[in-house]
């Protein structure tokens, strides 16, 4: 499809849908309704939205959907760290129940017992998986969960009178950027540990930075390299001894379910991305859920309300003594809570463990195969990878000039995703693959074959890769300054009309 921008479909007079109008009796009672608006607040011109018939609006968006590569459509292992797994269709069907979709969050508790029970049941499951003792599902994404945890750390030290003194949060460079960013928003100074030469967080560096200023330590384990830090319990001990809180970014938990837990590793808090490990869909980037679990001691700090059970009824407890308040409206993303609960129930305890084991098996298979591809390598320690690996094309780039961004565009031609890594590129020419448990050996072999072919192309005829894509929805972007020059960028259609179309006319 070569689908225009929606504004280009404008045909004055057309209509996409008829809205409900007020009943005649209502109109005869109150008139036009809008005369009540104070003069200063009347909108004088209608918004310049396009007017388009319903069929054309639909056609536009379904065509755009076909130009979007959802995980239902490809061997989605190229978006490493994102844990792109199979999204069970039954769960999508279950959330379309009006008794879920049409609930208002302020309904009396007696009328939402089913929903509260689902939330509570998920809480119980998450406790088993993590060893934590209370969960909040209010944070609606990993970033918001990290922010909530940073808030708890601050509140905790404030409650103990150390709020001003403890103003440092320690993290590692292979952890998600949001760990550092959210702690900084919460006013903390960030200390970032770089890995040792094998790719492990360096315990000596940790020892060097802890102090009475240490408020907390946040880390992913395994990190985005897929390397598990076996000394994690020592790390948490060191931080605890310095008086800090240890919190755990479990975005990379997919290889750990039923294998090892936050509690035993010494963490006080952790969060899981329900939209990653727990098979809720990513929905182009949310809404999502960062399930936030804490030990008993920190329960009173959670954002409220949380769901509790009194043996007979489920109820909302908003009476948390040290609560940080709220991080998000009402109760979070209920559909995703339901999806993840359903997913856990479809797997059971054995199934969850098989998820982890198969994810690790798949990843190690891939790891084994990718390293055999000419020009590709996996920096740091040999082996010891769990659910994902950050690879490098450093050698290929040196030898052929083909970069990881070139490979990225070329992978599109195979109908596959491919992601490099978060910035900064500590690993040169990086790419990160996470096969999860959802893909079969045949699927993995297909992905590997595509990488092999591109490597061959790079060594034989690098231009093939550099000029890609060929079979994508669009051709290579002409970036120049269009995205970074304030005079050129066009963040909306009205700016495009002003900066590009009208300028072109006057030329």
């Amino acid at each position: 499809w070569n689908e225009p921008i929606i504004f280009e479909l404008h045909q004055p007079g057309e209509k996409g849908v008829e809205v409900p109008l007020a009943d005649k009796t209502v109109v005869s009672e109150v008139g036009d309704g809008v005369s009540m608006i104070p003069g200063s607040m009347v909108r004088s011109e209608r918004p310049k939205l396009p007017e388009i018939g319903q069929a054309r609006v639909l056609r536009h968006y379904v065509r755009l959907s076909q130009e979007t590569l959802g995980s239902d459509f490809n061997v989605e292992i190229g978006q490493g760290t994102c844990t792109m797994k199979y999204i069970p269709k039954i769960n999508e069907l279950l959330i379309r129940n009006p008794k879920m979709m049409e609930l208002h969050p302020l309904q009396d508790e007696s009328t939402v017992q089913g929903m509260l029970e689902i939330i509570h049941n998920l809480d119980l499951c998450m406790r088993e998986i993590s060893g934590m003792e209370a969960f909040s599902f209010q944070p609606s994404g990993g970033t918001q969960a990290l922010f909530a945890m940073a808030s708890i750390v601050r509140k905790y030290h404030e409650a103990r009178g150390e709020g001003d003194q403890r103003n440092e949060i320690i993290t590692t460079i292979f952890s998600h950027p949001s760990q550092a960013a959210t702690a900084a928003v919460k006013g903390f100074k960030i200390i970032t540990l770089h890995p040792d030469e094998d790719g492990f967080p360096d315990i000596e560096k940790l020892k060097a930075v802890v102090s009475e200023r240490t408020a907390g330590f946040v880390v992913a384990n395994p990190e985005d390299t897929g390397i598990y830090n076996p000394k994690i319990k020592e790390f948490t001990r060191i931080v605890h001894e310095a008086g800090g809180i240890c919190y755990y970014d479990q975005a990379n938990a997919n290889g750990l379910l039923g294998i090892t837990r936050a509690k035993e590793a010494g963490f006080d808090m952790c969060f899981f991305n329900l939209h990653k490990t727990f098979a809720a869909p990513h929905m182009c980037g949310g809404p999502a859920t960062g399930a936030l679990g804490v030990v008993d001691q920190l329960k009173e700090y959670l954002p409220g309300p949380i769901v509790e059970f009194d043996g007979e009824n489920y109820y909302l407890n908003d009476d948390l003594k040290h609560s940080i308040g709220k991080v998000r409206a009402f109760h979070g993303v209920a559909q995703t809570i339901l999806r993840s609960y359903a997913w856990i129930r479809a797997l059971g305890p054995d199934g969850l463990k098989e998820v982890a084991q198969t994810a690790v098996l798949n990843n190690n298979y891939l790891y084994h195969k990718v390293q055999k591809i000419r020009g590709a390598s996996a920096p740091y320690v040999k082996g010891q990878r769990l659910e994902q690996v950050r690879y490098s094309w450093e050698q290929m780039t040196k030898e052929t000039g083909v970069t990881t961004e070139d490979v990225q565009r070329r992978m599109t031609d195979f109908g596959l995703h491919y992601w490099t890594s978060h910035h900064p590129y500590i690993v040169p020419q990086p790419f990160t693959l996470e096969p999860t448990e959802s893909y079969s050996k045949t699927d993995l072999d297909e992905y590997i074959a595509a990488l092999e072919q591109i490597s061959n192309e790079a060594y034989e005829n690098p231009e093939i890769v550099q000029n890609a894509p060929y079979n994508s929805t669009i051709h290579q972007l002409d970036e120049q300054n269009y995205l970074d020059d304030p005079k050129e960028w066009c963040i909306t259609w009205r700016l495009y009309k002003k900066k590009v179309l009208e300028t072109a006319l006057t030329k």
Partner: protein
Amino acid sequence: MTKKVHPYIPNTVPEVQNQMLKEIGAESIMELYSCIPEELQLKEDMKIPEALTEYGLRRHIESLLSKNISTNEYLNFLGAGCWQHFVPAVCDEVNQRSEFLTAYAGEPYEDHGRFQALFEYQSLVAELVDMDVVNVPTFDWGQAASTSIRMAARITGKKKVLLAKTVSPERAKIITNYGSPELEFEFIGFDKDSGLLDLADLKNKADGNTAAIYFENPSYLGFIESQGTEISEIAKAHGVILVVGVDPISLGVLAPPSHYGADIVCGDLQPLGMHMNFSGGQAGFIATRDEEKFIHEYPSRLFGIIPTVKEGEYGFGDVAYERTSFALREKGKESVGTQTALWGITAGVYLSLLGPNGMYELGQTIMQNSQYCVKKLNKISGVKGSLFTSPFFKEFIIDFNETGLSVETINARLREKKIFGGKDLSQEFPEFGQSALYCVTEVHTREDLDRLIEAIEEIVSN
């Protein structure tokens, strides 16, 4: 480990596992876990119920959900930040498309459609608020307001933030937690009769240290804040950035805040095509002018339209990516991650369907229906249909003080009549006594409103 092959995990087939292990050169899967110290390995089983088949799962979940009573079954007048509106079927069709549902963070090539849909969403909301820049949506209105305020603080380099006392208390909690410890918050009072912002108090508190003034319009309590221009003048006098929160569904009939001087506009997209979902439909937006000082302070992604090497073809990319935490970690602007992209796409579909006239008619219907409701309520002895004298949009406070009944009692009696009454304000605004915030929209037919009115009449007169 059981030998059962799960439909979600193809490689649980033992033959395949063995083949893969052989390839890797490992004896068993647990060998791959040797990096996890023995003492950290979980010994006991997780106490989670055994797996259900798809059919068993369906029976289980549906039996739990059947304990809920939805707003399809009871008449609903709850709003207060999550509102029941008409959702066009095309919105559901588009956001349930499995491509959009299961996509994530692909590149502008294979995910061209996602980029375009979000660029269009930005462009459509920009017309609604009449501003030039709109972000890829964030979590909810509370987050959007919090970030708008922090943007203002970064731009001005100041720390004091003035919040209208009529801002939603829940949002105020989000804002103050998000702003602290860096920012300082003060509240501005309101007029008890009209609900309008106390301009004297504002003048008093606004000064050279003030980063931002934030109020909402229509307010949390439903009234229309008509002093936009006056507030904006006070802000300008001190170099303060004016942030206004808005219910976007009002903007077919109400002036957008940019028209009365707002620098940053934020709000919740939920009314624009999202089902309530027990609050799972929330999504926040932020809009500003196209000025570098604003753009560079957005933490969110901003998609821009650019050419491709093929003449006439559109492509899309991240504008000013270097400001984000993706690019700079803690040096970036706040943080960015998975937020509410699908609701952004849906809001775009919604606005494309309604167009300018649909948005106008919808606003009008809401005003007519809610005014009708208040007018009829006023006829009930002891009930004051609207506590405030100001005109209102969609929501209004019913004053039950004269009835001698508590809102709690009235709501319980309404539930017996299959009606969800409005939100009890006695906790958040004790000064209003027994009053409740009611929400009336285009989903209410005259029959629905009459049913409510008759029910209240019956309850208060017994």
